């Protein structure tokens, strides 16, 4: 799980152009949206692309993102639950 979390951090930084953020700055349980990393709605869509591109998971309804993308950990757990870790 930890390895997946670390991998996700790097992928997210790259996919979302978070140039001023380092992997160690992202806490696994910190909120990704709102406070925390302060991502916005376009970032949420990019995370959907990331899931498809790197993990072959397709999300049809953008509203599902709210729960899946709460934190890096919830993302990792979702990926694992889909059997795509």
């Amino acid at each position, binding site marked *: 799980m930890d390895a997946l979390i670390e991998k996700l951090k790097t992928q997210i930084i790259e996919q979302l152009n978070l140039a001023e953020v380092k992997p160690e700055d992202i806490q696994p349980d910190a909120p990704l949206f709102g406070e925390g990393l302060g991502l*916005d*709605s*376009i970032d949420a*869509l990019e995370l*959907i*692309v990331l899931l498809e591109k790197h993990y072959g998971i397709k999300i049809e309804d*953008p509203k599902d993102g709210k729960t899946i993308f709460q934190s890096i950990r919830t993302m990792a757990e979702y990926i694992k639950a889909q059997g795509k870790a």
Partner: protein
Amino acid sequence: MISAIGNNVHEAFQSLSNSQTGIGKINHLTTRYKDEFLAGEIKLSNKDLADLVKDNNPDLNRNSYIAMLAAKEAVIHSGIDTKDGMRTGVISSTTVAGMGKTELYYKELFEKDDHLGVLDTHDCGDSTERIADYIGNVDYVTTISTACSSAANAVMLGCRMIKHGLLDRAVVGGVDALSKFTFNGFNTLMILDREWCKPFDENRKGLNLGEAAGFLVIEGENALNKRGGKALAEVIGYANANDAYHQTASSPEGYGATLAIQQALQMSGLTPSQIDYINMHGTGTPNNDQSEGMATKAVFGNQVPKFSSTKAFTGHTLAAAASIEAIISVLSLQNNMIFPNLNFTTPIAELNLIPETKLLLTPVNTILSNSFGFGGNCSSLIFKKA
């Protein structure tokens, strides 16, 4: 005007008064989404359009055809003679431009030169210049590109240049044909509805893309009187503001929209209660309709005028939207009709705004027309019966 609801204004009026939508399956555009999404497609092939324009230049694209046809229809309808010595401007707008053709040959262009001509017709200014050439004797051209509010800004600029004595009249409007580029792009933003869009409905899921070209001839009073012309309607107010919130989403409270509507009202000298009908931007996306609804309530309070979005007829025609909706507004004024907000069942819970869902025959003297574009560009126009 040429759009999914008709190849000219008369046909469009027939569709509007018969509640006949132009949104349906995609027939002419080749796209991987052909069977997945509905669209407001013009019911003519590129070959049909080329024949109508009577030009077999292989580098002309769908965008230029429909622009030329609609602009010419407007000029003929107005009765102006561009050779009469008065100063005529063409202010057009587009976001797609020649992309519809360029995307077909994009990869090939790296290998061969066969279709180099499409590069000439690709840019935004090209269709404007072709309109100018097609109409003839044009003194001034310019092209605006501010996404979905583009044509409203073209109307505004036309009015202002006339007001400041820089032009006597202007052919203003916008054009955007369907393209793979926009389909793919809007799909990644996940704001397309796979079914028929439902503007202002609680269960709306997104927009249907559409294509159209819409042009109006705006004249100063002096110029109009000098040539003995007759006005169809009057532009009495307009405003533009920036939402300053997000590149593509509107602020939840509709801040920019509120500013645009308020400032247009201020210019017109009308109070909110004097607006008879609002033609909403109403794309059918969860975000826009919520935001625009909030702005409407902020300005009109509990006295929201009759309103509808006509995008369930035409689809969202991007840069052309504001101009075809201006034409729809003029038709509304001329015929004392309010065209329905099709496909509506349940009002948005927190707003409880209910649009007109059936064709309504009622006196209409003043209309507010909204168009809000990506980049936070919010424009509102107010028209009055002539």
